[in-house]
């Protein structure tokens, strides 16, 4: 296809061609960045918790009076919950991923308080946490029974003596890049040593996807919270989730009338809720992209139709001189391809510029190069689809149209 006559024609319609190029460029720039933002959100939402999400049910209990013996009450609660039909295992934990609570501590490799520390999300849990959560040990072992102690005992002493700690893979890599984390000594919030006994494949922080280091690095300590400072995790047969939720709440309130079940919920609901904002944002971005592409295609249809109408005489003359319908069709398609290509080239630089601004103002990562060809293909396809109807109308014009004039 000879493109010189097309360029000659376009030169006579600088404003209209410029507008199409501008519109394609803007759309390309925005859509590339929006698609990248969407993919980032989806990546965040898809981050696995490493837990048996579908099988977990949670209970929060509050006392109306000060409890005389919270440790004994907690033990009784655990026994009761374990006895419910459909329950596989039960444990108490101080906080959970996607929850409202967030406790973090500083972990150091030296006993000196002023040594460089790493912020680490601080999980406490009683026996059975590993089976209940469904987390997977990558190396080392679970805590032994004699390593556990009550949080209430720990709360009374200024010097925390905890023999063992299990850390997540990310933290193990950060502190012990050589891969020999198990058996090493670390210090948490004080001069007392803790031995790393295990490394977990995954243990998300209570606030996963955040920017701080304690939102990537986590540890588990063999410390049993009592009901007032912990959450009961119950792992159940997914089919009986709903039944355990109501039976569990009733059983807990029956044990002690001076307590109320503050919250009973499915773990997946908590997770769903945590990512709702990201999901909304991804939908919104997607809708805007779609609207942008629609508006742009309307613009192309509008201007192309106008051009076809304006060039009726030219088309008729060409047809009369022997041009085939296919040639007329391809003329408009090539013209659109040229305009869109120019728009895409401009749009790519603009996309990159926007990405730089977003990096600076919102600490977003740089737009990966792969998004640029995606945007280009999208807009080329859009341009060709949008121009098809006006181009076919042009191709259908009979040669005699040239003689009739406009």
């Amino acid at each position, binding site marked *: 296809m000879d493109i010189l006559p097309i360029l000659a024609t376009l030169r006579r319609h600088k404003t209209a061609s410029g507008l199409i190029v501008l519109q394609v460029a803007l759309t390309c720039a925005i859509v590339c960045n929006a698609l990248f933002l969407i993919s980032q959100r989806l990546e965040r939402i898809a981050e696995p918790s490493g837990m048996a999400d579908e099988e977990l049910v949670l209970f929060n209990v509050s006392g*109306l009076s000060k409890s005389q013996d919270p440790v004994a009450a907690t033990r009784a609660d655990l026994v009761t919950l374990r006895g419910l039909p459909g329950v596989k295992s039960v444990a108490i934990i101080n906080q959970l991923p996607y929850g409202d609570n967030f406790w973090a501590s500083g972990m150091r490799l030296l006993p000196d*308080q002023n040594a*460089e520390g790493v912020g680490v999300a601080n999980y406490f849990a009683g026996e059975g946490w590993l089976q209940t959560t469904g987390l997977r040990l990558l190396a080392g072992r679970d805590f032994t029974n004699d390593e556990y102690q009550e949080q209430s005992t720990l709360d009374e002493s200024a010097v925390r003596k905890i023999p063992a700690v299990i850390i997540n893979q990310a933290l193990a890599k950060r502190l012990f890049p050589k891969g020999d984390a198990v058996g090493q000594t670390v210090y948490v919030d004080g001069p007392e040593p803790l031995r790393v006994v295990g490394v977990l494949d995954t243990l998300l922080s209570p606030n996963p996807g955040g920017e701080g280091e304690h939102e990537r690095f986590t540890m588990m300590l063999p410390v049993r919270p009592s009901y007032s400072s912990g959450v009961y995790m119950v792992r159940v047969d997914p089919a009986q989730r709903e039944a355990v939720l109501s039976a569990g709440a009733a059983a807990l309130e029956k044990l002690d009338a001076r307590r109320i079940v503050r919250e009973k919920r499915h773990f997946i609901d908590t997770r769903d809720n945590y990512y709702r904002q990201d999901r909304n944002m991804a939908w919104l971005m997607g809708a805007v992209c779609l609207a942008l592409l629609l508006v742009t295609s309307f613009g192309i249809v509008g201007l192309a139709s106008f051009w076809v109408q304006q060039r009726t005489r030219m088309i008729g003359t060409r047809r009369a001189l022997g041009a085939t319908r296919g040639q007329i069709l391809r003329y408009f398609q090539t013209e659109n391809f040229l305009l869109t290509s120019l728009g895409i080239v401009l749009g790519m630089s603009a996309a990159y510029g926007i990405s730089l601004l977003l990096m600076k103002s919102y600490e977003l990562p740089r737009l990966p190069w792969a998004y640029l060809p995606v945007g280009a293909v999208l807009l080329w396809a859009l341009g060709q689809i949008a121009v098809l109807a006006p181009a076919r109308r042009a191709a259908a014009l009979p040669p005699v149209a040239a003689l009739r004039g406009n």
Partner: protein
Amino acid sequence: MFAYYFEMALRSFRRSPGLTVLMVLTIAIGVAACMTTLTVFHVLSGDPIPHKSAQLFNVQLAADAQGDHKEDDEPTFQLTRLDAQTLLAEKRGDRQVMMSGGGVAIEPEGQRAILTSARYSSADFFPMFEVPMLYGTGWTAADDQNAARVMVISEEINERVFGGADSRGKILRVRDKDFRIIGVAKRWRPVPHFYDLSIGDFRNSEDVYLPFSTAMELKFGTMGNFSCWGTHAPNTSRDVGASCAWIQYWVELGTPQKAASYLQYLKDYAEAQRRAGRFERPSSLARIWSVMDWLAHRQVVPKDVQLQVWLAFGFLLVCLVNTVGLLLAKSLRRSGEIGVRRALGAPRRAIFWQFLVEAGSLGLAGGLLGLALTAIGLWAVRQGSSSFANYVQLDGAMLGTTLGLALMASLAAGLLPAWRACQVMPALQLKTQ
């Protein structure tokens, strides 16, 4: 003349209804996207206490250990109990308050216990933040001193427990202790929840208010950010003298001079603590922030909301370019008509205004439709789960802005086509006819 142009515009719309609807729709969607996001932004970045926000200051002291902090790292954004109590006792501001969030279960007689959000504060909370009262008042400094068992409840709780009656003097049980109600706060929802951002930027105001000293004496649980350093038994971390920062401290300073001298006083206090060996970090980190500065510093407006505003404006820009293109095509298609008008004596200015009026009418129609779409958009935001969903409303200013934006946008879009239209050479057009 204007009426005539308007009539011509209507005629032109009737001739190409499809194109007209398309242009109105484009403007409407673009404007609605902008206005929906802008309204959310406007609400979230608003001033929660307009007539006083410049006189209320959040107080920050760098009481935390040096640790691996760099010289100019941010200090903890709350105070230790010891510092807060000392500043409160020295009373250097016009008013001052120390407080923390909490949660308590209240047990109304003969009803099921209710879990409520609570605020434990000193007496000045009510006059400082101008909490509107339905019945009674807040408590006094003497009540703080005596750790009095008094409480103020919200209108919502008053309705739920007492059916909305004047409940002053009634007794509510909290953790086995009797509290006397001395006041009922009217519905009150500062947006953002500026006086305590540590429990969520857009939380509802609290259900019950208790004196801080009373809550501490009874060891009620607190809620919010708790930042500790040094070694101490965890169950002593709320004691006076514990090395934990967890208290919000605000001071009211009527004039800029008072603010300046208060800042100096605060730095002197920090320096004295440093000399005494209690503080390790530079005393220059002592700071006061007015309400709006504090909200900006703590970046209360979510980044997602800001991104949405940018995205919407980018979208509007594309819609505008699109409208320019379509208007241009339309005006060029009408070259013949313009040629006739010009030949019959219409000056260029008249043609220019005619096309601008046409663009403006499109804009007005787009604006009205955009208003309806904005209302739908905001309704969708309210259905969402975000913590600020309930507050998002279209106000008068935003209503005007919507129509203004649509008109401005369409006029801007109409400029180029109108200019091109008035360039049409009458002779040339008449000849090709």
